């Protein structure tokens, strides 16, 4: 399928959509039906609606229908207005984008129109720093060479500037002509591939020729990019509106459902089934009783002939009676507490980025408890783990190491001396650093020079050269000026042999304008550059240097140069031009030609660049891995860099402890074999305490995801760590999808626009509001300032949220079941006729006030202090494995509610038997029993009491009596005077105390027994924490970790999947003995002095 775009032709532009962007979910008209439809897709809501409708039938309703309708309407209104508000905000954002003014050529005249009115085929004019409003094919720029610079950060997350060129056929058109240009562009239908654009363009006469001109992605300006350092540019709109590449790749974010939500739904389903069973059994029994007994009970006056539905009446009554088994308030309470969890994240001072003063933010308020259940973290590299700032650190020139002592070659005295004394090697080295790149120097008005580089590495090199007095001043066309120690040297840039990921090196050919000599300057990866050196040159030092730097996690480049003979260059230049103009296999041919020139290089030295890790990254990864979370690194960067960074931040370990398994290959067969091999190794070694990680690149991944998904899935399950390099945004999303399909909870963290899809796809998306703009942060569920906040987000907020929700939801079921069981028990004493023991007011208030408020206090509950959790991240397993809310814990609560119902009911009916057996009184006795019990249950289940919790629990208890005293004062109420009457009876209070003692005694005894003799890890830590207090502070530990981190480059982490075989003596008897295994569990360090000792010992080992 093709699309033909006629340039500047109004007649045929209606066949495509206009440039209106729409992210809205609803319109004004379809809001109500669509929203209701969506809400009613939830099973719970359908159920409540059914119940509410049934209650309208007065024959069967035990209570006033308002008690169900009221809450139901409130619930619906609340969620509908929330949706409406969100959609309205989306609408405002769209509107802002759509109404932006842009310059468009109409009928040969440039006009200002709104962005939404751009049509396919329109010529759009952009100025410097304008945002590209839709996908354009570039046809003209202000630059003489027909290039322009764009920043694509919003699209792919890469911050460096990209050059875009106008197609050859448009070269040389002036702006007058550009107004009148006509032609046709043949391009594919809209897709989301931001790296490919295979199209042709043909201009109509009188414009030059009507040859077909091929277009590539390099000829396009895509929506949401920014035009930089170019005065103006213009292009033809080819894709507009939601059909742009950005629009197509914008996935519709599905509402996320947490694992706890899913579990609650499951439990609700189980309760529902139970309820159906109860209803059927009781309904049947009720009908039997009615036919055998009730007909004899003459005072009931059953008619002999009932209506046709008579058999249904009793079951339906029980259905309504039991409908409170599923607490209607659950969803409201959960929404409420979840928004408080989110607020706690927003408020957290410790997750405030001090540098930029950015607080963390929870954009999605509904999924906090999922944070505590994360099993896989998929992380971007650049900007997420690293700071995305490359800094030149060390170098090795002609066998001399600079910067080894101070850690910064720029401050190394030897280096400065060498520069000062005009050491030829050093000067050549610096010349290559300054010249061999595609950096653009930009001179500001004040005369300072800043550099715009496509690659951060080049940026670092040029900046470093400048600091060493080799300043790149300007690039004008082919002339390059360098200022060395105050004297200006001019070079003519003859050719650029560009960097490709296959060649792994780049070179430039320059001519010294002064001497007329021609040089080839090269830089590249060691494995690509060293083989090209002059035979016989001692390259051993350089290999050592590269190795040493790599060990330190620095990115290395080898620099080399060669003087070219005039005729040799001329010969080669001809071939190069030829290769450049071929249409078939162009890239391969160019590589081949380059190869012919890049040989016999004189190796000048090795540079080492640091992409600093963000502060606290290794510790964070370490702690989270101890918590049993698996890490995958998905990066668009190249393999070697990815591996280096991975090594640096504890991601993987170097050789003896860890092993990297590479999956590579160019063809399907190769990839398949490679995958097979890796899988085999993985299976064999999975039992060994070895840190295995597999490495796969984007190309192989594409083949694998298409053909060998099953094998890869198995691999994904076996492997705790993976590094995927050169992956595209959609591959990132696919990997997330793959892990999700294995039922893992995934968290994706990233900072750039290229992470957006992964972030949206994952169960939890975390965006780092970093240097690559806010793209990712905007799409994410959580926004944090630094990677290191992730550990607090997960271990503190995620864990507490999970614990609290687990308690709150199960407790809600407990209290609903409790009251429901009492009703069921009562029905055995009321002729199985479906009488409600409690009146409507009590039933409604029971759910809405009496039991909801104290449990809200659980949002402040902390089972363990934050410090303890940070020291024992393994405790997260309780959340991860869902041990606090699952069918078996739920069975416990179920049993408890049954037991408590029996206690309350049996004690009530025995204490209030015979002459006291009055309906209203008994009902209030039973209800008070429930209230007393639940206050004590909440007390017992809470782990920490703040004043607020105390107030909520006992304040609510008092409120129960106050409310009932008030209701007892209303003469028309059914329970007029009942509460006063009861409170005057000693037997009432004695009964209450008895209910509490019988109800709570066994619970307390059992809990005590478990707590003391079968403690869970949480209990042990609680005891440890409260008896002895924290043994050592966290800061202490972190600094210790850090010091070890610096010296021991090859830390490895040995934690096989079963998560329990790490030896970790956590707390020792004396508080000074800070014994702790650090990461690899190989290096257990005693006390700080010993730790220092051991690290220096290790360093010595290495140096030897």
């Amino acid at each position, binding site marked *: 399928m093709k699309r033909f775009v006629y340039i500047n032709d109004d007649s045929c532009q209606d066949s495509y959509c206009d440039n209106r962007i729409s992210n809205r979910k609803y319109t004004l008209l379809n809001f109500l039906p669509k929203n209701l439809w969506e809400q009613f897709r939830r099973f719970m809501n359908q159920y409540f609606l059914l119940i509410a409708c049934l209650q309208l039938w007065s024959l069967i309703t035990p209570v006033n229908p308002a008690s169900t309708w009221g809450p139901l309407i409130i619930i619906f209104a609340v969620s509908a207005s929330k949706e409406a508000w969100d959609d309205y905000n989306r609408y405002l954002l769209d509107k802002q984008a759509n109404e932006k003014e842009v310059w468009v050529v109409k009928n040969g005249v440039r006009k200002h129109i709104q962005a939404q009115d751009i049509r396919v085929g329109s010529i759009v004019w952009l100025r410097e720093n304008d945002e590209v409003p839709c996908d354009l094919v570039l046809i003209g720029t202000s630059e003489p060479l027909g290039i322009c610079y764009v920043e694509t950060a919003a699209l792919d997350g890469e911050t460096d500037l990209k050059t875009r060129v106008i197609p050859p056929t448009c070269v040389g058109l002036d702006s007058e002509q550009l107004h009148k240009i006509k032609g046709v562009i043949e391009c594919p239908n809209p897709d989301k591939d931001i790296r490919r654009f295979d199209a042709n363009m043909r201009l109509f006469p009188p414009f030059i020729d009507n040859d077909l001109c091929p277009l590539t992605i390099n000829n396009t300006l895509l929506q949401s990019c920014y035009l930089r350092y170019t005065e103006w540019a213009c292009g033809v709109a080819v894709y507009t509106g939601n059909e742009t590449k950005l629009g197509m790749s914008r996935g519709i974010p599905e509402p996320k459902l947490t694992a706890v939500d899913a579990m609650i739904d499951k439990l609700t389903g189980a309760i529902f089934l139970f309820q159906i069973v109860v209803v059927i059994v009781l309904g049947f029994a009720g009908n039997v009783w009615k036919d055998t007994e009730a007909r004899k*009970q003459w005072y009931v006056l059953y008619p002999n002939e009932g209506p046709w539905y008579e058999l249904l009446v009793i079951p339906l009554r029980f259905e309504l009676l039991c409908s409170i088994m599923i607490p209607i308030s659950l969803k409201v309470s959960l929404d409420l507490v979840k928004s408080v969890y989110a607020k706690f994240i927003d408020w957290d001072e410790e997750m405030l980025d001090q540098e930029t003063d950015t607080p963390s933010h929870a954009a999605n308020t509904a999924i906090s408890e999922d944070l505590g259940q994360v099993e896989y973290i998929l992380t971007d590299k650049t900007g997420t783990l690293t700071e995305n700032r490359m800094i030149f650190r060390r170098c090795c020139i002609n066998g001399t190491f600079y910067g080894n002592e101070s850690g910064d070659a720029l401050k190394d005295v030897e280096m400065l001396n060498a520069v000062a004394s005009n050491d030829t090697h050093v000067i050549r080295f610096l010349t290559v650093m300054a010249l061999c790149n595609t950096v653009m120097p930009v001179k500001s008005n004040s005369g300072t020079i800043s550099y715009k580089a496509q690659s951060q590495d080049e940026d670092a090199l040029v900046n470093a050269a400048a600091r060493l007095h080799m300043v790149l001043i300007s690039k004008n066309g082919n002339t390059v000026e360098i200022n060395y120690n105050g004297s200006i040297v001019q070079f003519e840039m003859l050719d650029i042999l560009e960097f490709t990921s296959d060649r792994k090196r780049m070179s430039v050919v320059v001519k010294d304008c002064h001497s007329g000599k021609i040089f080839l300057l090269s830089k590249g990866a060691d494995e690509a550059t060293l083989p090209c050196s002059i035979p016989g040159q001692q390259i051993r030092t350089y290999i050592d240097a590269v190795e040493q730097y790599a060990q330190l996690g620095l990115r290395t480049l080898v620099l080399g140069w060669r003087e070219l003979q005039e005729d040799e260059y001329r010969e080669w230049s001809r071939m190069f031009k030829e290769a450049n103009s071929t249409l078939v296999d162009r890239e391969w041919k160019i590589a081949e030609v380059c190869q012919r020139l890049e040989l016999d290089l004189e190796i000048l030295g090795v540079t080492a660049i640091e992409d*600093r890790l963000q502060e606290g990254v290794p510790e964070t990864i370490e702690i989270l891995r101890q918590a049993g979370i698996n890490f995958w690194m998905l990066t668009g960067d190249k393999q070697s860099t990815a591996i280096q960074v991975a090594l640096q931040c504890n991601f993987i370990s170097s050789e003896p402890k860890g092993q990297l398994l590479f999956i590579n290959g160019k063809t399907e067969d190769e990839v398949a074999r490679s995958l097979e091999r890796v899988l085999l190794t993985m299976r064999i070694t999975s039992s060994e305490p070895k840190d295995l990680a597999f490495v796969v690149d984007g190309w192989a991944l594409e083949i694998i995801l298409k053909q060998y998904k099953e094998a890869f899935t198995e691999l994904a399950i076996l492997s705790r760590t993976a590094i995927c390099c050169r992956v595209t945004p959609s591959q990132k999303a696919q990997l997330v999808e793959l892990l999700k399909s294995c039922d893992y909870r995934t968290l994706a963290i990233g900072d750039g626009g290229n992470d957006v899809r992964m972030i949206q796809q994952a169960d939890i998306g975390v965006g780092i509001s970093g240097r690559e703009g806010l793209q990712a942060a905007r799409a994410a569920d959580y926004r944090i300032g630094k990677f290191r906040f992730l550990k607090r987000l997960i271990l503190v907020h995620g864990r507490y949220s999970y614990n609290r929700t687990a308690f709150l939801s199960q407790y809600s079921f407990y209290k609903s079941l409790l009251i429901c069981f009492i009703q069921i028990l009562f029905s055995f004493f009321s002729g199985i006729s479906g009488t409600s023991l409690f009146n409507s007011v009590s039933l409604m208030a029971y759910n809405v006030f009496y039991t909801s408020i104290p449990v809200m206090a659980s949002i402040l509950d902390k089972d363990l202090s934050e410090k303890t959790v940070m020291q024992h991240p393994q405790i997260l397993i309780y959340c991860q494995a869902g041990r606090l809310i699952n069918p078996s814990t739920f069975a416990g609560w179920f049993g408890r509610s049954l037991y408590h119902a029996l206690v309350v009911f049996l004690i009530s009916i025995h204490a209030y038997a015979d002459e006291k*057996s009055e309906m209203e009184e008994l009902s209030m006795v039973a209800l008070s029993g429930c209230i007393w019990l639940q206050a004590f249950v909440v007390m017992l289940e809470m782990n920490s009491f703040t004043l607020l919790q105390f107030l909520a629990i006992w304040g609510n208890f008092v409120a129960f009596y106050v409310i009932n005293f008030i209701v007892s004062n209303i*003469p028309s109420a059914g329970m007029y005077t009942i509460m006063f009457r009861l409170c005057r009876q000693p037997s009432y209070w004695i009964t209450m105390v008895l209910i509490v003692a019988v109800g709570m005694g066994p619970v307390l005894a059992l809990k005590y027994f478990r707590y003391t003799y079968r403690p869970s890890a949480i209990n042990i830590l609680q005891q440890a924490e409260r008896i002895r207090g924290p043994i050592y502070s966290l800061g202490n530990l972190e600094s210790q970790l850090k010091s070890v981190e610096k010296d021991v480059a090859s830390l490895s982490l040995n934690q096989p999947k079963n998560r329990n075989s790490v030896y970790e003596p956590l707390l020792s008897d004396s508080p000074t003995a800070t014994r702790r295994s650090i990461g690899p569990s190989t290096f257990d360090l005693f006390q700080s002095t010993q730790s220092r000792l051991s690290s220096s010992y290790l360093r010595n080992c290495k140096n030897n």
Partner: protein
Amino acid sequence: MNCIVDSDIGSSSSSGDAAVALTRKPRRPKYSKFTQQELPACKPILNPQWVISVFTLIGIVFVPIGVASLLASNGVVEIVDQYETACVPRNMTNDKVAYIQNADIDKTCTRLIKVPRDMHQPIYVYYQLDNFYQNHRRYVKSRNDAQLRNSKEANETRYCDPERTTEDGSPIVPCGLIAWSFFNDTYRFTRGDQKLTVNKKGISWKSDRDHKFGKNVYPKNFQNGTLIGGGKLNADIPLNEQEDLIVWMRIAALPIFRKLYGKIELDLKENDTILVTLKNNYNTYIFNGKKKLVLSTTSWLGGKNDFLGLAYLTVGGLCFFLAVAFTLVYMIKSRKLGDPSDLSWNRDSSGADYELFRDFTSSIDS
């Protein structure tokens, strides 16, 4: 020549902290102990001392209360006389229903009861019905409080099905099954020659008389239908003075219940013989319901009911037992609380790692 060189931001971050702290921007969330989840909290743990003392305390409190409750219950003198079978004439024991439904048979019946112990006034007279479901769904609902309260609302017979109106459509006051099935056995007591007056004033709740049953609401069309349920009402007495009805209409929650019939305001002596003349009108024979006449004194805890006393003694005893058991277990199998070596990830540590660790430390020592 000046040029901008990327400065090392990372290393300056620590010094940057201080600077930022000085110039706080309003974006920063306001600090409070609540927002930081750092409210001071008390964190009790279930340590043995605490748990054992709680159980001991419960035991100490419960046993005396149990004893007191039992004593109170034992102090109550209660006479129960089941009469529904005994009051059926010999010749009709096979067909009790026919007996009770035959209006021609005189239902008067005499019972002799003996007072086991001295009974002090007031002595409450109850009737007890067994197997009578006042709490049945159809029955409970079948009344209209508005009608009972207010004479103007006589037509308000909602919920009163199936006893709403007479056949000609005029409303029944009081309507509904509850009133319709009004209990109508009567009792008279004589001790020797002395007639024991049964005071029927004030047997109902005052709140009911004052607010639930209107003083100008008179029975109307009551028990006029073809199907007669229970007792009839004197149409000249307002509802709030029909105390038997008021008592009856306080629904009993359980199928066995007692309702107050009246009070005898005389002391009864041990071995007194009391002659009860009763009218056995109420039909419980169809559903095999029992009818009992109960004379009882009362205590601070109510009538005779051993349940609370026994339950308190049992619970108190059990708590003592648990306290002792926990103490024993605590002493025999004492366990250090909060021992980190119990943590699962410490317990199952792999030996190999430990070996490595030992080697390593020893190499340092040497």
